[in-house]
């Protein structure tokens, strides 16, 4: 059974003068148990709204959500098994990080040693007794992550967990998320940091305009954007370019290389054309496609993703 199920999810927010803003336009999503699932999309694509609907914070305008089999009205039964962090986590500013977690943990009768463990795990042990208002953005993120981990949950829903973290912090969180995923938990991570998602997720879903664009294992999603171009290096470059064009091979110069608009399985055609003109290739390979490229292709360049 999928851990997270979303079917035809729609959400419209109403403004003060009845103006409606569509956040979700029929999103379908299914997240299997175990591993790290990346939820990718440009700003305003509906990632956070989806998470808020899943957690019962926002009432959908239509469609259905199920988290561990529970709909919005049954969330109380599964809340103990779900840890979450929505956007930049908010806590009481004058209470220490530890005090904030204690007040939450008391709701579920969670042992205080688990709080200390979670704070240590996210690298906040030394500042656990400082007031929350003195925390940097990165420390606030870490505390939010600690709050999600205190329950020792089966499912973690993390909304942009790397927000505000420095490169070392991002790596720590990435390693932590991967470790949590490898322990058999399901980690659902929304992010616009494509490089991060590519490195830490097993599966990925890309959303744009409130709809699912594609979904699957990271390798498969990458493959969907693969095979469009070949990179060729040969000397003389101008001669090689002219030869290819003369043979009606779509090619363009790109610095010290030539980009050929052919699929990898047509690479032999490039070598043959050039060899016939006594030009020998020094490098011929498919253009490497990363998640950013696929993302931009699939979302039509919408948004400004970060790598």
């Amino acid at each position: 059974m999928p851990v997270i199920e979303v079917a035809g999810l729609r959400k419209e927010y109403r403004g003060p003068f009845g103006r409606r803003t569509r956040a979700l336009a029929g999103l379908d999503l299914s997240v299997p148990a175990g591993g790290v699932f990346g939820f990718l999309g440009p700003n305003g694509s509906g990632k956070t709204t989806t998470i808020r609907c899943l957690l019962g914070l926002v009432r959908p305008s239509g469609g259905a959500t199920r988290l561990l089999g529970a709909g919005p009205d049954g969330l109380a039964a599964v809340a103990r098994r779900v840890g979450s962090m929505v956007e930049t986590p908010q806590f009481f500013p004058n209470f220490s990080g530890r005090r904030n977690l204690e007040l939450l943990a008391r709701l579920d009768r969670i042992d205080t040693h688990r709080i200390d463990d979670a704070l240590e795990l996210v690298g906040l042990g030394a500042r656990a007794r400082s007031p929350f208002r003195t925390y940097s953005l990165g420390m606030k993120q870490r505390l939010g992550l600690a709050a999600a981990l205190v329950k020792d949950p089966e499912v973690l829903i993390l909304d942009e967990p790397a927000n505000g973290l420095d490169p070392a912090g991002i790596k720590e969180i990435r390693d932590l998320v991967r470790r949590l995923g490898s322990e058999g938990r399901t980690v659902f991570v929304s992010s616009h940091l494509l490089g991060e998602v590519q490195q830490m997720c097993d599966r990925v879903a890309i959303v744009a305009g409130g709809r699912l664009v594609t979904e699957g294992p990271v390798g498969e999603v990458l493959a969907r954007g693969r095979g469009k171009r070949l990179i060729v290096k040969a000397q003389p470059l101008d001669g090689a370019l002219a030869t290819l064009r003369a043979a009606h091979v779509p090619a363009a110069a790109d610095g010290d290389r030539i980009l050929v608009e052919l699929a990898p399985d047509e690479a032999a055609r490039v070598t043959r054309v050039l060899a016939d003109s006594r030009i020998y290739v020094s490098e011929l390979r498919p253009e490497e496609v990363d998640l950013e490229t696929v993302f931009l292709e699939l979302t039509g360049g919408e948004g400004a993703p970060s790598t």
Partner: protein
Amino acid sequence: MIRSVVTEVRRALARRLVRVVVLVALAGIVLAAAIAFANSSPDEVDAFSLDDIWTSDADGEYVLGGTASLFLFLALLVGASLVGAEYKAGTVTTLLTWEPRRLRVIGSKLVAAGLVAGGLFVVLQLLLVLALAFVVGVRGAGLENVPDDYYRGLAGFLGRGALIMAWCAVLAAGIATLGRNTTAAFGAVVAYVVVVESILRVLRPGWEAWYLPENVFTALEGRRLEEVARSAPGSALVLLGYLAVVVTGAVVVFARRDVT
């Protein structure tokens, strides 16, 4: 539900505002005792007495009556800020991810607001009574010859006071839930009493039995006041009616509102 209420009470008591209120009240108690001490002498005819602290005499003025008025404002502030601070800090999201049952969340907040305000009233007023009674004993009219029903009457006053303070805090917390803001809630109540009811008093003098201050003080005193044609239980029912309207609105809105 009890766990949620206990958590909310602990949170409320750990808040800086509540701690400042308690410290200021304690300083006020010490100051009041010092002033009473300095201005009283056992040899004087009108030496400081237990009746100056509290009296059942309808025409009498007493210290606890004055401080109760002050506590009304503090109860408003404590109740409004308990919920308002949650919205200001944005912690409602975090809380609801731990306890998705919204009725339980809002219920525990309202109950906690009432418990904290009522409890603080009783504890601080009792401390004031003890401090002033000490002055009565050592430098006032003395603690002998206390009427039989004095302590029972005082306990009744404190009990009614605690309920009124709880009412006030829950009302403010309910309005803060609707307005998602401490200042808005506090301001709404004060503006209603000071502005709206003042205008109504001029335009509709016959409606006095429905105004908040009259009903609050009738219920607090536990007897029909001269200017109000309503008994203490009647006033209590009116206040409960107002509270029911606000709390119902707050609960419905909180249960349905998107938390973004």
